[in-house]
């Protein structure tokens, strides 16, 4: 019975619903969609010779998920940082899974929905839910379908000839272009939000210096609140900068800011875990302070946001002056 599985090769992508998990498999002459229902599996077959089209479209679900998990993780992180109790590591119980979910969601990439069309039906493919994995899966499906049907799709579709494939010479046939992103029409962005984000990074750096100097819990709490705000700003900036005229340098810097924020939270969590571990394994009755400072971490907390913030502001300034020049030249043109 297990020998049967060799006929099928698993395609990337996995769709999770309340009912179960959906997967897609390449068979010898058909595509098999498997809908797992816990105690049973339902199968749907799409023969390569019958597949007419496969369409995908990106959705914004991943942004909503990133915002949800990111804000929840940041809120838990804020609670963790604001707490002065030695039991504050309890915050990490919900915090670490939330942070992992947030990072995994970013790692998997944009969400999408996919639909397959045959002569008889058009049905969704629930296993292809992420654009990168859908792209990989579609490349493999396309290779199989082309091997079965040929590649001369445009002429066949235009003329509507019933047998467009049989005579198609694979060498002479125009090959289908790879799934590359197109050049998109850019939307004009004010970049105000990006400015606020970069200024908040500089404020973060200054606040870290202040909290190191005065060692007051008020500065510490303000730093934690700022971290939450920065998380929110970074996520909104990433969402807003899509399909805009913002140059790639600034976009990458926003992503780097998000990576810095995630790394900061991860480092704080790690440091507290270590401190808690020392408290547990240390001599009985001796309380090890969890608030012990680390020079490297402190330097990272000061330098990284300062670098990100200043370089972001410089890039923004250059970008806005370039844009102003371009606008002026446009208006001064006879």
């Amino acid at each position: 019975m297990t020998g049967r599985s060799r006929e099928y090769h698993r395609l990337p992508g996995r769709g999770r619903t309340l009912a179960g998990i959906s997967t897609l498999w390449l068979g010898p002459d058909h595509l098999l969609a498997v809908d797992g229902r816990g105690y049973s599996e339902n199968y749907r077959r799409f023969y390569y010779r019958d597949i007419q089209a496969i369409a995908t479209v990106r959705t914004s679900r991943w942004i909503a998920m990133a915002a949800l998990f990111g804000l929840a993780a940041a809120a838990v992180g804020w609670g963790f940082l604001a707490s002065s109790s030695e039991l504050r590591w309890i915050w990490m119980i919900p915090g670490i899974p939330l942070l992992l979910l947030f990072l995994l969601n970013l790692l998997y990439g944009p969400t999408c929905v996919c639909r397959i069309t045959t002569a008889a039906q058009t049905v969704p493919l629930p296993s292809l839910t992420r654009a990168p994995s859908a792209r990989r899966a579609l490349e493999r499906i396309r290779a199989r379908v082309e091997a079965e049907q040929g590649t001369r799709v445009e002429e066949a579709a235009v003329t509507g000839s019933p047998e467009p494939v049989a005579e198609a010479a694979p060498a002479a046939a125009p090959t289908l272009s790879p799934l590359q992103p197109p050049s998109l029409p850019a939307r004009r962005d004010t970049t105000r939000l990006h400015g606020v984000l970069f200024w908040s990074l500089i404020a973060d750096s200054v606040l870290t210096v202040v909290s190191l100097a005065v060692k007051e819990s008020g500065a510490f709490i303000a730093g934690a609140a700022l971290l939450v705000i920065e998380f929110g700003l970074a996520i909104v900036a990433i969402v807003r900068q899509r399909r805009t005229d913002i140059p790639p340098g600034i976009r990458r810097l926003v992503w780097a800011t998000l990576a810095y924020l995630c790394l900061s939270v991860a480092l704080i969590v790690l440091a507290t875990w270590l401190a808690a571990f020392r408290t547990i394994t240390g001599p009985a009755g001796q309380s090890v302070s969890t608030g012990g400072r680390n020079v490297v971490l402190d330097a990272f907390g000061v330098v990284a946001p300062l670098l990100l913030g200043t370089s972001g502001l410089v890039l923004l300034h250059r970008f806005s002056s370039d844009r102003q020049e371009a606008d002026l030249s446009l208006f001064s043109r006879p």
Partner: protein
Amino acid sequence: MAFSVSCIRCEARLPRETWNRGEFLCTTCHARGTALVFPASARDLGASGSPGAAAEEGEASCFFHPSNRAVISCEACGRFLCPICDVELAGRHLCPACLETFKKKGKWTNLENRRTLYGHVALALAIYPMLVFYFTILTAPIAIFVAIRYWRAPLSLVGGTRLPHLFAILISLLQIAGWIAFALFFFRFRPAHPRG
């Protein structure tokens, strides 16, 4: 009717220029997507499902449609078939009656559209009742029965092992052993009733 592909989000027809050109931006809803269109799109239902020519005198006719000329015979029963009745599946040509028979008997995996995973059923019977542990006195034997009774039942079409069966049996045996130990302990060390 000409073939068309529509945007999944707004259902607007996608222009032909967006087909097989990588990612596109829907002109209506501005959603980003891809549209792969294959040569089968040019083949309409009429081409494959046409009744074919009418049978003339002396020609073989379809078993199910005597007025239609037969073009092929069923590989299972040998009946002559017209293009309407010819069902091609995995390289074999069958008549609808044989197809139905194969499906009912489950002899052809290519026709299966559902399978029960008995290993998972047995494992669930072994594990979930442990939340309310005293249910296991009933469910452990049932889990063992299901695991053994359906040991030879087909696994998932895309692979799978009998490990769930095995785990279900092991866990259920442990539960039964636990109940036996509890019963022995209870009857051996039962506190004596105080005598009046």
